[in-house]
């Protein structure tokens, strides 16, 4: 197979006559808004440069999403923003992933191309609306010139362009070709709608997800589903201990499996190449590898926590400081202390990592559910030693991520999927399409976990009031040696380790948050809601304890301290109202707990109603959640993200724990890395607090406070505070 035969997309974005393409104008790229619209000779496999929106003669409006769809509804969000300003009919909207072009498709919040931090709608809100508005202006101009009527007399609604006075009307497709010859308006000055006139943004019902149908009838294509002629499926045997290296291997039995065509030692382990998945899986089972553990992590989780605990006795790099907390402790009537520990957590997206790559010796084409195109593209360029224009990535749907598809692989932290794909392709040589597949065991055991973390909290009480609060955060930093370091680490402080702890909703006279980064050999990465996966629980458990000890109500007591946090107070009031909060206390075996947080510019408050189920497993009956994420683009997507985020967070809160014993990961699949199941899912009521502030993200916001809301209820049911380390359910409490 030659690289020209590798179909990067069967549904590619075609440049052809009669297609209106709206894109970003970039000096030097030579492409204006419609410059490619009338190109007739373009190769049919070329992406229109800089494109964001394409309108064909069939009237279909295709949006190129710079954000990867991992389930969070990014495609639906991008389509809504464009359709709103274009006044399109929802049924005519389609979405594809954008190619890699950092200058055009960068995330405006990060400065590189990628999806994360609940930023998709927030950073694209103006940009994608402008694309829609521009397309509308050009279509209207085209209609005006064809009908010879003033453009101002033309209206557009639900995909129909009308001139009332003359009774003429038509669809977008009729004007697409003509519109390509209309001069493009200036993208930065094009007039956007007054939010009061929105018909799609904020609409409650009827705006279905653009990806629902394909994901309901089995036609949606994920990385796992890629099947190319002559493709080899590759499994990789990796060191069972982090940092281990191949000493020797024996492939004779593996090669005896029918369908196994090769076994090669590669940079990231030993690769087994099969004609199909079953052969590649069986071959790996028969492979014998002798691992050299000279550089490996040999410790157990307890030993790593012991190190953290020791470090936590000293104060670390200051993240925030107000007043003189040390003085306040000296003058306190009482000092309250707490420690919360958090294990490694595997993201376990439903689709384990998979990627397809074709290398012909001089060019690379990769296709998979890529999340941070900028980082992956750079890694592939470096690994193949090819210039950027010789490496293409086609992004397709990803079967969940929760942070796992952010590939931080590098020589310090270790390899991840991009490195696996490159190593597998290089070892077998040019001209073979290779699909690297990870099994669930690989997913659970190969690292890139939410780091282990410890919080040591102290509060000074004087005259029945909290006068000082300190929080020392100790743990690994996933960011420090990664490509993200420049973005989040400065002067020894990793912002993504302390978000939610360095700034809290409560005002105390004396306050300090400090942090220690403890290096480790286990590769770590960010998990859905990042620092808030631990800061939310530590802060909200501790404040609850302080309110308890000073005899205050969990809701009223929090509100009294929220003088400088009006939006946090807003969501807390809203959730208390929805849940008809009557104070703490156990009613018919059920108790309610509270949690409040801010993350990624969004505010959430939750109340969980909990009882103790069989075997002491907490049973969560209902969760109320109020969210303030500014102006809401897709209310139903927001509700879905909060519902799912609570379920995901509850699974982590109750069960998720990756533990090491002598350096070996003790979990391997869903039988011992327990996911939340439908019979454990609470009822959920979501309250969206109305706001006209700029939109902020919600993809991660269900997660931060479900753990403390449940934990705080458990205390009322008799669990001691000291037992609220995560996960809350521990068959073996020593781990």
């Amino acid at each position: 197979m030659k690289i020209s035969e590798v179909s990067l997309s069967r549904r590619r974005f075609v440049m052809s006559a009669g297609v209106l393409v709206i894109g970003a104008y970039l000096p030097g790229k030579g492409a204006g808004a419609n410059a490619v619209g009338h190109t007739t000779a373009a190769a049919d496999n070329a992406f229109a440069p800089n494109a964001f929106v394409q309108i064909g003669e069939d009237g279909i409006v295709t949006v190129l999403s710079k954000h990867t769809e991992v389930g969070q509804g990014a495609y639906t969000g991008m389509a809504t923003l464009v359709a709103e300003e274009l006044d399109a009919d929802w049924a005519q909207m389609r979405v594809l992933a954008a190619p890699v072009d950092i200058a055009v498709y960068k995330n405006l919040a990060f400065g590189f191309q990628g999806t994360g931090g609940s930023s998709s709608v927030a950073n694209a809100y103006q940009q994608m609306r402008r694309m829609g508005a521009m397309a509308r202006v050009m279509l209207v101009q085209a209609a005006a010139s064809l009908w010879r009527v003033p453009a101002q007399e033309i209206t557009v609604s639900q995909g129909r362009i009308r001139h009332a006075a003359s009774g003429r009307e038509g669809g977008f497709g009729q004007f697409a070709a003509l519109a390509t010859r209309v001069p493009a308006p200036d993208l930065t000055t094009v007039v956007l709608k007054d939010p009061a006139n929105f018909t799609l943004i904020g609409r409650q019902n009827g705006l279905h997800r653009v990806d629902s149908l394909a994901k309901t009838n089995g036609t949606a294509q994920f990385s796992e589903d890629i099947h190319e002629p002559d493709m080899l499926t590759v499994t990789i045997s990796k060191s069972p201990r982090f940092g281990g290296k191949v000493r020797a291997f024996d492939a004779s039995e593996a090669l005896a499996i029918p369908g196994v065509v090769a076994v090669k030692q590669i940079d990231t382990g030993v690769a087994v190449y099969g004609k199909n998945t079953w052969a590649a899986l069986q071959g790996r089972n028969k492979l014998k590898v002798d691992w050299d553990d000279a550089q490996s992590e040999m410790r157990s989780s307890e030993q790593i926590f012991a190190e953290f605990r020791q470090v936590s006795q000293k104060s670390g790099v200051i993240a925030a400081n107000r007043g003189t907390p040390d003085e306040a402790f000296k003058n306190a009537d009482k000092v309250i202390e707490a420690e919360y520990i958090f294990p490694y957590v595997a993201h376990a997206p439903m689709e384990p990592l998979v990627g397809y790559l074709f290398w012909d010796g001089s060019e690379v084409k990769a296709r998979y559910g890529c999340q941070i195109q900028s980082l992956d593209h750079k890694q592939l360029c470096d690994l193949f030693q090819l210039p950027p224009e010789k490496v293409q990535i086609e992004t397709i749907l990803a079967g969940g991520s929760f942070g796992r598809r952010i590939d931080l692989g590098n020589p310090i932290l270790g390899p991840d999927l991009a490195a696996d794909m490159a190593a597998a392709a290089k070892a077998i040589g040019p001209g073979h399409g290779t699909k690297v597949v990870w099994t669930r065991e690989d997913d659970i055991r190969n690292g890139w976990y939410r780091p282990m973390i410890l919080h040591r909290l102290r509060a000074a009480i004087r005259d029945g009031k909290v006068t000082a609060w300190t929080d020392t955060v100790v743990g690994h930093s996933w960011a420090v040696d990664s490509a993200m370091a420049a973005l989040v680490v400065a002067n020894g402080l990793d912002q993504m380790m302390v978000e939610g702890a360095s700034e809290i909703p409560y005002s105390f006279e004396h306050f300090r948050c400090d942090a220690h980064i403890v290096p480790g050999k286990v590769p770590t990465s960010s998990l859905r809601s990042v620092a808030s996966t631990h800061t939310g629980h530590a802060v909200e458990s501790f404040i609850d304890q302080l309110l308890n000890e000073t005899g205050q109500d969990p809701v009223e007591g929090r509100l009294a301290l929220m003088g400088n946090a009006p939006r946090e107070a807003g969501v807390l009031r809203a959730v208390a109202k929805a849940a008809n909060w009557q104070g703490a206390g156990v009613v018919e075996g059920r108790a309610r707990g509270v949690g409040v947080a801010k993350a990624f510019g969004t505010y959430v408050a939750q109340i969980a109603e909990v009882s103790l189920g069989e075997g002491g497993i907490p049973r969560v009956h209902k969760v109320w959640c109020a969210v303030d994420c500014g102006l809401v683009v897709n209310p139903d997507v927001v509700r879905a993200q909060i519902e799912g985020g609570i379920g995901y967070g509850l699974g982590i809160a109750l069960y998720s724990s990756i533990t090491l014993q002598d350096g070996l990961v003790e979990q391997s699949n869903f039988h011992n890395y327990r996911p939340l199941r439908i019979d454990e899912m609470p009822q959920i009521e979501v309250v969206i607090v109305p706001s006209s502030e700029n939109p902020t993200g919600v993809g991660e916001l269900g997660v931060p406070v479900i753990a403390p809301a449940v934990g705080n209820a458990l205390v009322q049911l008799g669990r001691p505070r000291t037992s609220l380390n995560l996960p809350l359910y521990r068959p073996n409490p020593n781990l």
Partner: protein
Amino acid sequence: MIDLTVNDQPLSFDGDPSMPLLWYLRDEAGLTGTKFGCGMAMCGACTVHMDGVPVRACVMPVAAAQGKKVTTIEGIGATPAGQAVQQAWLNLDVVQCGYCQSGQIMSATALLMQHVAPSDADIDAAMAGNVCRCATYVRIRAAIHEASTTLGKEEAS
């Protein structure tokens, strides 16, 4: 040689009879709607119907499908229950990443073929083997009830 029927199409396979039905369907028959999530009957992503009964294709050798009728997500829409379930899934926008949903829909359809009006407890029992990491469970439950209502009305009329 193994002969089986998949979505009403007769097929035969002369490869390794111990190959799991999942990999046969995906790699050999080209039906990739059935997903791999765990490979050990712990997640339900690979659920298909064999003679109308839901099975986990990841632990079922293809040889066990000899002479059987297999229905996958690609074919389930041809049944009234499957159609009602898929429509309810669309109406409520159940999906998020979507990767588990073929299995969810196959399990839900099997449930409704048995019980036209399942209780919440029936849903828990029938669906607890299907993991959704996006935790779309609230909507899965609601959509099963909605599909049940649709099927009930069809039966009445």
